[in-house]
């Protein structure tokens, strides 16, 4: 259990916490979308740091240095997938925010009936 050796993990988790904070305590729809995005980014960072091997290079053989250690490819593939999923959710959330703005003329959660709860 160490914070210093695991600094990259700790930093990505901090990013997740920041995103959660924004999502829970901000009252503007766009800021809430930014919060969701931050959580996503934090988790993507966490996934990518999982695959790092000390001194490793990218797992691509084209013109790779001979005999070098390569980092793990699976977390990179997972991150790629989750980035695209994050893009899709963000696009949909923003579309609904635009629609709500069109209906109410505001993005403030406290002025929108259903979202108060």
């Amino acid at each position: 259990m160490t914070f210093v050796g695991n600094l990259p993990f700790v930093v990505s988790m901090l990013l997740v916490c920041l995103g959660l904070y924004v999502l829970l305590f901000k009252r503007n729809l766009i800021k809430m979308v930014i919060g969701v995005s931050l959580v996503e980014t934090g988790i993507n960072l966490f996934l990518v740091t999982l695959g790092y091997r000390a001194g490793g290079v990218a797992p691509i053989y084209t013109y790779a240095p001979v005999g070098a250690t390569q980092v793990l490819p699976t977390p990179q593939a997972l991150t790629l997938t989750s980035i695209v999923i994050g893009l899709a959710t963000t696009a949909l959330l923003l579309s609904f925010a635009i629609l709500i703005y069109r209906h109410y003329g505001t993005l403030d959660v406290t002025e929108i009936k259903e979202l108060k709860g």
Partner: protein
Amino acid sequence: MNALATHVPILVIATPLLGAFAAPLIAKLGRTTRVAFSGLIAGLTACFAGLLAATLYSAGGQPIVYVLGGRVPLPSGLAVPVRIMLEVDGLSVFMALIAALVGALAVLYSVSYWKERSGGALYDSLLFLLIAGVFGLVLTGDMFNFFVFLEITSIAACGLIGFRAWRKRSSEAAFKVMALYTLAGLLVLLAVGLLYGQYGGLNMAFLAANLSGSMLDRIALALLLAGLAMKAGAVPMHMWAPEAYGEAPAPVAMVLVANSQAGLYALFRILFTLYGVALSVTAIGWILIVMAVLTILVGVTMALVQSDIKRLIAFGAVSQIGYMLLAVGVGFAVLATRPAFGLAAIQGGIFHMINDVACIGLLFLAAGAMVRAAGTRNLNAMGGLAHDLKGLTVLFAVGAFALAGVPPFNGFASKLIIYESTFRLSPVLAIVAVLGSIILLAVFLRAFQAAFLGPRTVGEAGRVPWTMTLSMAVLASIVIGFGLFPGFFIDKLVAPAANALWNGQAAYIGAVLGGG
């Protein structure tokens, strides 16, 4: 035929995907072609799901493993599965049958329900995506792949919830549901990352064989529990459910019930198969039981005060999630000692899944027809529908009585098992469960009286088209059939599913890793 049986697990998922991708292109050929294509895809999917069930049951319930892109689960000399796999056991097949039933009926119902509306092709596409996502959730044997399907269902569901873009509440509900679903998905993803970081694998069977019960495993379990309970709509993460069910078009609300159950399925799969007795089962079981009791109570009390027919049914749906969670929580709490009533509780919970989807689905579909006929969702403004809509009256009554657990309908059959088995663990639980049913009966009697009795308010204009009646009739026949012959269906369908949870862990792992 043999080759078809080999590939049927992937065909179940790929067929609705094909339907979703092709629907907007096919729709350019005209409405008749579009409807025929949707029917073809829905029928084909249901056939494949039936074939999958037949294959599994004829093989004696041994889990089927389908490796995507390879011939064998394990490359020679390796202890880790490297490819994504679908793993189908009794419980998966049971859930797949529910999804197939609900999907086919939703498509059938939508033919007339969505006739007068814009965006029919996009609606079809999203509906097929939702169905494909539910199939993927229940059939996959890979943790990350599970997350991907979770997101497919979330996005398709929210697209459908916000589909009536002219309604203010639809877009609000869609935003709220989307944010919470995304959060749930991200919690699951974080847990998957934690598990991968420790064991270097993503396959469920591989993880189940290697879990050591360390601190990180418990944190991952807490994240999975929170995320999946949120997806299933259990209290205290239920706040999205009434909005979602209430604002989604009626057939979509029915598919969303199956979607919530898929979240519940994943919860059970992770608890029983992935973690199993490596945990302190009693503590986790009681956490589930407390959540379940809260879900039942909150669901029924909130249903009491609703005047919007769809939200009323929505809270009823929330309370039913509580019954399933209660039964399976009781089963999990006693997993270490394995008394007979534990298995009975799990059987009751799983049997209640298909009963719930049938009667809640029937109620949602009936509510769709009622709102269409009366032009309002407010129960106080509705009235006298029984004068002109006799068939609908009977169908709604069947669904309402079944949901409240009145004999001889199917809700009674499964709730009786739940009462009996939970009583053995603690009489208080059974009392809460009975109390919930009684309040629910009161709720639906009031709704029935408000909507159907009283002076005539609608004329012949509100007639229900035949495809809508047919899909409701199918559900009603299931409600009555399962209520009259519960023993037969428990024996054929529920027992393999319950056994897969109760003592299927070794078989599930052995099917991938060999040995057993």
